């Protein structure tokens, strides 16, 4: 959405259509990745790799904060509908931490400028994603010290998976055509 040239209605609607189709494509991709992750065997049940967040990271890196936020929110809602976690607190947790993660990644990207890479941005997002979930659980649901005992190990896991996702995103960015990632 770099140019809003309303004096050329055809070009404008073409750009809009192109943007919508690309963001839909990436949303679909994120949903599929979340689905794959749902069935991926992991050593501990409360560890998530965050493959879908890698998509938000790539969109953010190549485009802007609103695009990444839109893709991530749509993904969370669609995944909740698919796996039937609508009414449970899990949806509230996922939505909030999803927004926080993208916001933190956007802030890290802006503050870090040239010095920060995909891995750094990814780690920031992953860490705050998990931190948000724990804070929310503590404030809203179970105010129990035992939950906080899990926070430390989970945050360590978040750093590790954040590095992995950042590395994967960097590899993908090298291989994918720029036109596919960039929404005009």
């Amino acid at each position: 959405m770099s140019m809003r040239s309303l004096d050329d209605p055809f070009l404008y609607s073409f750009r809009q259509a192109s943007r919508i189709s690309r963001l839909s494509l990436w949303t679909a991709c994120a949903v599929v990745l979340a689905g794959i992750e749902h069935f991926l065997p992991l050593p501990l049940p409360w560890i998530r790799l965050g493959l879908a967040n890698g998509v938000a990271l790539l969109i953010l890196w190549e485009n802007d904060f609103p695009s990444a936020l839109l893709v991530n929110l749509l993904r969370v809602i669609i995944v909740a509908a698919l796996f039937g976690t609508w009414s449970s607190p899990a949806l509230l947790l996922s939505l909030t931490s999803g927004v926080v993660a993208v916001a933190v990644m956007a802030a890290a990207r802006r503050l870090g400028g040239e010095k920060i890479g995909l891995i750094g941005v990814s780690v920031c997002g992953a860490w705050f994603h998990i931190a948000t979930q724990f804070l929310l659980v503590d404030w809203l649901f179970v105010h129990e010290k035992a939950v906080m005992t899990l926070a430390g190990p989970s945050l360590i896991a978040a750093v590790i998976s954040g590095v992995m996702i950042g590395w994967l995103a960097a590899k993908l960015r090298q291989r994918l055509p720029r036109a596919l990632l960039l929404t005009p």
Partner: protein
Amino acid sequence: MDFFLILLFLLLSLGLTFLTARGAPGKRAVIWVEGKRVAVLPLDQPTRLSVTGNRGTTIIEVDHKGVHIIDSPCPNKTCIRMGYARRNGQMLICAPNHVAVRIESDESDDVDAVTG
């Protein structure tokens, strides 16, 4: 920059793990002899207690630092060298004399819920 961010978040997480893993201070020391619960000592009241086990008399003391075993008839004196126990779930054990001290509190150690 990326490396320092990874290091920063890792250290933060490790610090939090260390802080929370130590457990909350307990409320009372429960004394077990020969597998039976024989006494409960509140940790906020300094006391001394002698219990008779398999081999003889073990002396347990509660003071402001927690609970510790000050005398025991066992050969190794491992229970005395274990020092103080004061956090929830901590234990002092004198295996030869069949004496155990376990710290308890009203809070449970169990997890209530797991979210995705």
